[in-house]
């Protein structure tokens, strides 16, 4: 488990464009945070910097993690927006590849891969190649890959962005049930406001040019939540409208 604190984060591209300006953000241990904002607001850049895939121009990110069994897991894992499974590896190999740097015994890796694939309902597709899977199944496999290494922090960069609405809602429920079992700290980047309200404990609203935190909206629905029945709750609509207003 880990908490994250982002302080005065600024990112300026070599071209001079200011992508992020003085972003301040705290994510509590075991919290599910969603980041929304107009396209080009730097939300993906923010996640990439937090995940260590990009470097900030200024500011700092502190991740306070429990020191326990740091050797047997990664500090964080990422679920990417596009097709991110290696096309040349079968589904189980893709998930097992996440363990590459951890040096666990093969039997242990196999056990955890099988368990995670079972949780996302892909046991029968363990030996399939990604191109044999539907878009939703590919993203379930990518989610399984991230959960399998059991990292304290999970970064998700519009993981369901390319999927149709029905599949997205189904996957939101699956993600919430996986998360309920483990209560990892999650930073979920999305352009879907309804998706953010469905999933998150707090929604971070970014404004564009340059990207900075405009508002933080706590979502006070009890858990466990259901992505479908939540939509019938009058408060759901209120949250969505409030975020829309902030984004205009």
């Amino acid at each position, binding site marked *: 488990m880990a908490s994250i604190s982002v302080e005065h984060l600024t990112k300026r591209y070599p071209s001079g464009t200011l992508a992020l300006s003085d972003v301040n953000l705290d994510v509590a241990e075991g919290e599910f945070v969603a980041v929304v904002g107009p396209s080009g607001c730097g939300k993906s850049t923010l996640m990439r910097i937090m995940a260590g895939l990009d470097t900030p121009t200024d500011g700092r990110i502190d991740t306070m993690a429990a020191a326990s069994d740091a050797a047997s897991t990664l500090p964080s894992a990422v679920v990417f927006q596009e097709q991110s499974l*290696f096309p040349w590896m079968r589904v189980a190999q893709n998930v097992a590849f996440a363990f590459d740097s951890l040096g666990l015994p093969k039997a242990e890796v196999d056990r955890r891969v099988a368990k995670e694939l079972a949780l996302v309902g892909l046991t029968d597709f363990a030996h399939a*190649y990604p191109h044999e899977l539907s878009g939703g199944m590919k993203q379930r496999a990518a989610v399984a890959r991230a959960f399998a290494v059991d990292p304290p922090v999970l970064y998700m960069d519009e993981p369901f962005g390319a999927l149709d609405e029905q599949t997205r809602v189904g996957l939101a429920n699956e993600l919430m049930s996986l998360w309920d079992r483990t209560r990892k700290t999650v930073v979920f980047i999305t352009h879907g406001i309804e998706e953010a309200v469905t999933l998150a404990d707090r929604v971070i609203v970014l404004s564009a040019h340059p990207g900075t935190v405009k508002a933080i909206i706590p979502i006070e629905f009890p858990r466990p939540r259901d992505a479908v029945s939540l939509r019938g709750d009058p408060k759901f609509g209120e949250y969505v409208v409030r975020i829309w207003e902030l984004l205009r």
Partner: protein
Amino acid sequence: MTRGERAVAIAAPISIVLLWQLAVSTRFLNPGLFPPPSEIAANFIAYASSGELATNTAWTLGRLVVGCLIGGIPGTLIGLAMGMNRWVRAYFQPVVALLYPIPKIAILPLLYFIFGTGEQAKWAAVAVGVFFLMVINTEAGVRQIDPIYLDVARAYRIRPMSFYFRVLLPGALPNIYAGIKLSIGIAIVLAVASEFQLTRVGLGFAIFNAQQLLDVDRLYAALVAVSLLGCILTYGLDLTERWAIPWRRARK
């Protein structure tokens, strides 16, 4: 290939052979220089059954395979390194740009000086041609890998050796295969050309020797053997491609 396409593919060489036969029998072509295909086939079978053709083909094939391995393996490894590391690329790119355009046939005399009259000169001729094609194609293959896969590798802290052999190599494999196919073509040219001198065996020697003896029949038999050798290697590679790159099947 659909059944219709396959039928056209089989009909194509047959139709050309028939046209040729017709052109010779109507004296449109000089049979002294262009023997009718029926005669070429008969001669080919005669030379093939004498065992001479098999021996020559085996020598050429051997030189081709050894040269491809000597040139292709380092070429692929350097191509991978160039695709991955900008410093390696900065170093090798101008070197490749300077040396690649030299016609490889033109360095055969130099190779004979360096390696003498033995097999090494022939291997080297093939290796030099294959080396550059594999460097160029492998590098292009690595650079066309979708950056998302490099992000995944970084996010999951993939170790350098795993990154090299389980991400870059398979990611570049479609281009590497294209490089191998091009290499086979240039390797046949160089293997045959290297046999024009300083050897008494090989299809290149057979062609050169037939010219010296004004033996058109034997010349054609050797040419047919070169053609069949290249054709079998190309189609053989196509078959292994399906096995080596199974994830590519879906895109076709």
